[in-house]
């Protein structure tokens, strides 16, 4: 990359490192994987930077982060990580309703609940509520039509509310 592009990259893309890590952390549900995936995504965005011709740089970067994370999940066969099979075989990976109820602390409760949402619900919530993205940006990042973004976000919120209100109904919520 020539020095001018390098400088542009540092000025435009690097300030969004937090956003990249935050999305990776929530998509991969924490751990060292999130850091590795965020790093990989930053390097990918660096390689692809010449293909970026202006526009919403954060959305562009987050799209790369998302793709990296989903590839990561597939590689480690965690893409169906929210199926009942996975929950039963890895009870530690996803908090049980009891665990959510016991975790009285607001932050812990919310983060447990969020971690147990299916990935596409979780990413909608994270992008909207944590990252403050508009529907249009979420549509661009997740490569889904606006209408789908709207309904996904709406369902994700209802499920989250349900889990927080009555953690025992988490199982039922999963079937929605």
């Amino acid at each position, binding site marked *: 990359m020539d020095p001018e592009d390098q400088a542009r990259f540092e000025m435009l893309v690097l*300030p969004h490192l*937090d956003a990249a*890590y935050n999305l990776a952390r929530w998509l991969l549900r924490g751990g060292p994987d999130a*850091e590795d995936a965020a790093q990989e995504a930053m390097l990918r965005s*660096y390689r692809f930077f010449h293909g970026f011709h202006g526009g919403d740089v954060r959305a562009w970067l987050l799209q790369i982060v998302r793709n990296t994370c989903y590839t990561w999940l597939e590689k480690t066969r965690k893409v169906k990580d929210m199926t009942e099979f996975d929950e039963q075989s890895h009870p530690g990976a996803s908090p049980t309703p009891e665990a959510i109820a016991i975790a009285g602390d607001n932050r812990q409760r*919310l*983060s447990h609940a969020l971690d147990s949402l299916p990935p596409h619900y979780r990413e909608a919530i994270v992008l909207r509520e944590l990252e403050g993205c508009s*529907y249009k940006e979420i549509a661009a990042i997740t490569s889904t039509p606006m209408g789908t973004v*709207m309904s996904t976000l709406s369902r994700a919120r209802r499920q989250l509310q349900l889990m927080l209100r009555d953690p025992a109904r988490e199982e039922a919520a999963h079937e929605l």
Partner: protein
Amino acid sequence: MSCERTDTVLDAYFDNELDAIGAAEFERHLEQCSECVKALEGLESLRSSMNRAQLYETAPPSLRKRVLAVLSPARPAPGVLARTRWPWLAIAASLLLALTGWQVASFHPGDNPESMLAAEAVDAHLRSLQPGHLTDVLSSDQHTVKPWFDGKLDFAPPVRDFADRGFPLEGGRLDAIHGRAIAALVYGRRKHLVNVFIWPTSESDASPRGGSRQGYQWLDWRRGGMEFCAVSDTAPADLDQLQRLFTE
């Protein structure tokens, strides 16, 4: 819900994503539908508890270091140098900056005062993100931050905490804009940082004007003999919201 409105419209209204006509229509509907009013309150309470929980996870320093190291192996980024090998250089540089004011922004002869202000404010913001530079007084208590400025400035900046509105006060420090000492208040916003620079002005109140520069948003306004300039990498709407909180 038995109401004929779909949740999607409710969410879009809540997220400010309906057009003016759609929003007006939904507001008329809200006047007669207690169910939707209740659902809206539910969304509001979910959002505020998520805000309070501060779920945003910022990049760990180790990741930042790794990324910077890989990006420019031949020319280590200043941040890496400052942190690892030449801490004294960073300290000397910051002293120099504090003494002389920051003049890195490249001003062009034709630049208007507004873009010069934006350049200075964004530079001050970037400088504050250097390790150890963010706050001189680290406190979320406005009653601690406000007196801290006493005797350090020739004016009393309005120091307010907006934690319950999603902008927790994180601290304050002295900074310089236009070559004069000013107050900088630091707010958190979903783990992004917002600097609000405040200094006295003799000009009359002015409504907010803003823009983006080097990937950062800025918003400037004047009110009650004070000029305010907010800078952050958060969404422009967040700065609008913070501006409204300040003028409430």
